[in-house]
């Protein structure tokens, strides 16, 4: 029976599960549904909250914020996670590029610029420093991706850009479209060739072409290469609204690696409670038809997300609860302190710092600082001591603490 349980299937849970699977512990990942990966841009932000490079921010964070997850695990642990993540993506022929030395600015589907430390190679040619004229191309049928709007916003920021719409060849037309519909179309070489020819015809003086991040689910680097051959320009992807195709690729390559290493992923099974004694979590239950499913626990990694992801629930009475194991939560004392007066307040909203506090081994602790469960580690957005939205560190914290929490748990002796 599988007694190593990972709760949550976002980036942190998947990284943790990979670490546990590679340690031979055959983890079972339980998750309410598909979520975090499918919602995100598929890039990794390590730090983008100020002008410092991610490396500088990591090295300095302990001095001011000793309880920040990065400070708890240390900069070397963040680097170790990045190395493993990059090896994973390279092995899956979907490599991530970038690193800690600087953030790369990438166009968003609103034509804004967004910093990312690591990005899939399919987005690399979006780096604004590359210069030249950009062509932004899309489809009228894909909602919430408007090339002229994106191009106009880029031009307003001093980047030469032009927006055009492409035509879906009649044989491939559908009634309804979402990013995944397009990704499946791009999986078809005939569709790709047609789009590539349209791009060549529309290219003009553009040296780079931005397309919505829907360039295939099976072999995106192959699709990009194909489109580059046909169009004669560099191709890059711009993340779309959910469902996120780059996120789906990430989920698939993680699931594959975890299962190859002996783990298993069980989606659709929300963990609703747990039970333990003597500082050990012994059982968790997941929601199932007719009755809950019981899972015996030897060790568990909790990565259910924060307020936005469902790992923390709040209500209008001011209650703040951790949803899976009912662990103590560190949160603003009362509801009046949850929000800053302005929606886009540079200081962020205090409620987003709510989370489970841990010791240096990422084990959950109570208000008295005592460890709640020795055999549980916590990772990702559920962790207290950080406002990952404001810091632009959400996926970096998930990646790094997920890996660290998995490694620590793997080394923990029952």
């Amino acid at each position, binding site marked *: 029976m599988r007694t190593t349980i990972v709760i949550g299937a976002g980036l942190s849970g998947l990284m943790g599960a990979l670490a546990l699977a590679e340690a031979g512990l055959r983890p*079972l990942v339980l998750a309410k549904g598909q979520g975090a990966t499918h919602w995100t841009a598929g890039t990794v932000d390590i730090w983008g909250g100020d002008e410092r490079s991610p490396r500088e921010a990591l090295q300095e964070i302990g001095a001011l914020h000793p309880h920040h997850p990065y400070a708890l695990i240390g900069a070397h642990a963040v680097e170790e996670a990045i190395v493993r993540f990059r090896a994973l993506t390279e092995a899956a022929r979907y490599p991530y590029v970038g690193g800690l030395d600087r953030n790369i600015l990438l166009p968003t589907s609103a034509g804004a610029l967004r910093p990312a430390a690591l990005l899939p190679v399919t987005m690399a040619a979006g780096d604004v420093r590359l210069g030249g004229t950009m062509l932004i191309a899309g489809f009228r049928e894909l909602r919430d991706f408007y090339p002229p709007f994106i191009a106009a916003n880029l031009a307003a920021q001093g980047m030469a850009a032009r927006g055009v719409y492409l035509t879906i060849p009649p044989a491939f037309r559908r009634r309804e479209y979402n990013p995944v519909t397009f990704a499946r179309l791009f999986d078809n070489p005939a569709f790709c060739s047609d789009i590539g020819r349209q791009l060549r015809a529309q290219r003009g003086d553009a040296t780079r072409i931005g397309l919505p991040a829907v360039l295939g689910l099976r072999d995106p680097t192959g699709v990009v290469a194909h489109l580059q051959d046909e169009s004669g320009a560099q191709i890059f992807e711009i993340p779309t609204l959910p469902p996120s195709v780059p996120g789906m690729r990430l989920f698939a390559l993680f699931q594959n690696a975890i299962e190859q290493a002996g783990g298993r992923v069980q989606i659709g099974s929300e963990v609703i409670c747990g039970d333990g004694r003597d500082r050990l979590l012994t059982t968790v239950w997941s929601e199932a*038809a007719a009755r809950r499913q019981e899972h015996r626990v030897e060790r568990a990694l909790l990565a259910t997300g924060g307020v936005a992801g469902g790992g923390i629930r709040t209500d209008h009475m001011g209650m703040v609860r951790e949803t899976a194991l009912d662990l103590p939560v560190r949160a603003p004392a009362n509801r009046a302190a949850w929000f800053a007066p302005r929606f886009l307040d540079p200081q962020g909203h205090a409620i987003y710092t709510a989370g489970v506090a841990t010791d240096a081994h990422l084990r959950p602790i109570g208000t008295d600082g005592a460890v709640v469960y020795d055999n549980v580690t916590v990772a990702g957005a559920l962790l207290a001591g950080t406002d990952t939205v404001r810091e632009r560190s959400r996926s970096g914290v998930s990646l790094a603490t997920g890996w660290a929490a998995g490694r620590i748990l793997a080394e923990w002796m029952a």
Partner: protein
Amino acid sequence: MIIPEDHIEQSLEASLDHCIKCNICTAACPVSAVTDLFPGPKYVGPQAQRFRHARQPSPDESVDYCSGCRVCNEVCPTGVRIAELNARARARLVAERGIPLRNRLISRSGLVGRLGAGPHAPIANALLGSKPLRMVIERTLGIAREAPLPAFSRYTFRSWFRRRRAPQIDAGTPKRQVVYFHGCSANYYEPWIGKAVVAVLEHNGFEVLLPRQRCCGLPLLSNGDFAAARRAHEENVAFLAPYALRTIPIVGASTSCTLTLKEEAPELLGMQSDTVRAVAQQTYDIFEFLRLLHMRGELRTDFRPIERTLPYHPPCQLRAHRIGRPALDVLELVPGLRLIETHAGCCGIAGTYGLKVEKYRISMDVGAPLFETVRRSGADMALCDSETCRWQISHGAGVVARHPIEILAEAYGLVT
């Protein structure tokens, strides 16, 4: 029939508000991936539901193209119960417009089985194997002529069970009893699966009880005939409750039947009595039950090695139990046996969906990635816990598809 107000209806309504329109369900939906006739779970589920009101005509016929696979529920990150919304919406459509004769027929698997199974089965099978006759049936009834129909058995599982000599249970060992819910397929089409279930349970020291039972009603539910499904479930609860109330487990190897007893019938029909709940709570899928025994250290593990690598397809109805992959968990214990989960979504058949002439092509397109995965595996056999999926896999991939319990019985060295 108008569905009465019940707390399930209310909870479904409440779950609508949890939809954040992220489209993860649409991305996962196997039907909308291959046809424009179904716009996807988000549209016909939480969105169209806003426009469905009692005493007003249903706004959206495309819900009839939902196959009921429930993958939308599985992947939804916020817990919207899309599949239930769709099933209830279809039932309203049926209530407004009536049930076509074809759907009345194919949803009555018990009746069809009783007519076809028995000593005269070869005649029935020859008739249904006749291409000209299937053409006529397609034209008159709308059952696709290529669709995979199972062969009737020459004897029923129940007749075999009645006639066999029951094993002597050692008077010294504590008596453990279990009810077997065989469903229509094991009774009328594949009695060897019922025999394997009985053999495995008896090998583990159980006395197998076989109370009266009828079709679980799932085909009725998925064809929107809620009135008939209610009668079926009421009868089954009456037959099974005496055992459930004595906490005797009810075990089935047809994963869609067990899901119906556990959840689909009570939830979709709004049946909430204590006996309904007792039956639901005592019902187990066979490998879920065996895994539980193993968890308690009560499963015999005297397996012979089986040196094989086989593709395993977890059917949608098993995934809807939300219990993981119990067949993999148990069969992992057999030395040498290696099962590879297919990860290729749905087989397409969805019970009776793929039998319908207007949906046959869709069902084959939905199943195409699975058929390809099975074929590429190079194995001459695939494993799957659901009968209609097995028939579809055999039809689409051209390999034998068997129930994992058959492999387990083989590993125990049980001759069935």
